């Protein structure tokens, strides 16, 4: 196989499988087709790809975390059907061509104390945590605890796979409607495991923004020294750092960061949450030009 000189590439792929794994949840398996060694797939947990939608009309690509990547270049995406783009993806038949640009963005730091690490996932945000977990499992290290909040039993999706990776006892699930595991949200199962939280050196969070913010606050209150990495979501027109459309405000520097280029994984302490004023233009020096374009 030819070795592609650059690790970032717009890979022509084929959809191998596109199956339903829960309510509105799909697992898509794709494989690159052009005989180039799958450098894109030498990617790290937390990184994502931009999927080109199967339409002639103008649409942005859509960002999806990598759920898993095989050594031979097949990769898995785990996605939820929420709008126009994912509805188009849902209808793709195995055998169809698809283009994915990647791997993009930053990745999770490898945990130093994996056995005590906390993985906290909300909904579809479990994807990159599964990737990191499975990598750790392959390395044979002690496995972290995984806290996983979903709305309802039928939205758990990958329960079997998660148990296989993290171990039956190390995965704790909450559902909003009480249909599986603890009735409530992920913070409630976290609070119930105070000791684990206090022992942890590091936590990895991916899910809806309010859930991430609440989790960060809870962790920090119970364990001020914990190192927390969060994987953010933003509207991403380009995914390559070209448009400056996907930013998040920073606590530690004047300019916002591009989520697609400097993230999606950030240390929790570095970023401003939306309600803390993401990056308001009032911060501009008064004498500067201020232009909305």
């Amino acid at each position: 196989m030819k070795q592609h000189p650059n690790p970032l590439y717009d890979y022509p792929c084929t959809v191998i499988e596109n199956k339903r794994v829960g309510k509105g949840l799909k697992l898509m398996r794709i494989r690159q087709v052009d005989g180039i060694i799958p450098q894109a797939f030498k990617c790290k947990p937390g990184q994502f790809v931009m999927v080109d939608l199967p339409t002639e009309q103008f649409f942005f690509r859509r960002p999806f975390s990598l759920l898993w990547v095989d050594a031979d270049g097949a990769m898995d995406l785990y996605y939820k059907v929420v709008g126009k783009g994912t509805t188009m993806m849902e209808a793709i038949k195995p055998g169809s061509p698809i283009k994915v640009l990647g791997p993009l963005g930053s990745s999770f730091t490898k945990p130093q104390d994996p056995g005590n690490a906390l993985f906290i996932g909300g909904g579809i945000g479990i994807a990159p945590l599964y990737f990191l977990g499975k990598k750790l499992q392959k390395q044979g290290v002690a496995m972290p605890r995984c806290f996983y909040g979903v709305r309802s039993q039928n939205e758990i999706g990958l329960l079997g796979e998660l148990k296989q990776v993290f171990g039956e006892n190390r995965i704790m699930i909450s559902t909003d409607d009480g249909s599986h595991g603890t009735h409530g949200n992920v913070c409630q199962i976290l609070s119930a495991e105070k000791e684990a939280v206090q022992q942890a050196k590091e936590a990895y969070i991916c899910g809806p923004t309010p859930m991430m913010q609440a989790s960060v606050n809870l962790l920090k209150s119970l364990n001020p020294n914990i190192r927390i990495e969060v994987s953010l979501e933003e509207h991403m027109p380009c995914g390559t750092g070209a448009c400056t459309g996907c930013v998040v405000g920073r606590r530690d520097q004047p300019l916002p960061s591009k989520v697609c280029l400097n993230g999606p994984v950030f240390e929790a302490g570095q970023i401003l949450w939306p309600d803390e004023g993401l990056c308001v233009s009032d911060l501009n020096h008064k004498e500067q030009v201020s232009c909305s374009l």
Partner: protein
Amino acid sequence: MLPVTIAGQHFPSPILNASGCFNPENFNRMFPLKGTLGGIVTKTVTAQHQVGNAQYRTVELPGIGMLNSIGIQNAGLDHFLDHDIEQFREYKIPIILSISANSSQKFAQMAEKVVTHPNGKWVDALELNLSCPNIDEGGVHFGVSPISVKQAVQAVCQIFSKPVFAKLTPNVTNITEIGGAAIEGGAHALVAINTVLGLDIDVKLKKPVLERVSGGYSGPGIRPIALQAVWQLHKHFPETPIIAVGGICNTEDALAFFMAGASMIQIGTICFRNPLIFQEIHQQLLQYLDAQDLADISELVGCAHQNVDNPQKIFC
């Protein structure tokens, strides 16, 4: 042959990226752009750093393009010259620095800094983004006032001896009046067009999608507007090179712009979906020249004007 020369500056290809739509860091990792891009246009840089606007900064408009209101987030001219320019140099193609300011004087100061900074010599041309407010004119945007445009261009040209491009906004009654003013001010080329003012509403939330309400419309839906602008500018100022931008999505679009009078083209929004577009168009332009037995892309420039049967009928 695709190379072009504008105002003495050689460009290895007539294809540029549009300002604010390109990331040299990632794009260069992806593929060797050298040879397909004629030069690199920077995101607009301001004198001081700018934080930019709050989210949402962009809206997807399915089928027709997008709106943006980024707010020229940038680290400021000093930072650009001290640090950022380095990554552009790796491409070994001309660097076109896009600048914006809120008065002619500030434009001049920025040009001055470029000229005096040790790394300023790497700047091969300046593109003036005239879409921002001019505080000397009570905050009216530069680009809508012929006088402001002329003054800004003049101020920069007096200091910066390499090519100066004036980027025109389409949000005016008569773009040829503004283009003419830029030429009087000394502009070596006109860049047309910047984004079109637009708005989108989230019907579920009953509010504008963009935090800043209005934004700049770009992508396929503005192509007919850009083509109209390029046509009129070339018709009025056949001697002035035009750099076309606005909705160019494929080789056929690119050809239409050359035929309407563009000497070079810039590609923006579409590269978000297809980052390989620069290579694709480059290759297909070469094939087209071959198939048409044309020696040079310049033979196409403005050719459609000769084929208007009855030029006096153009205006109603």
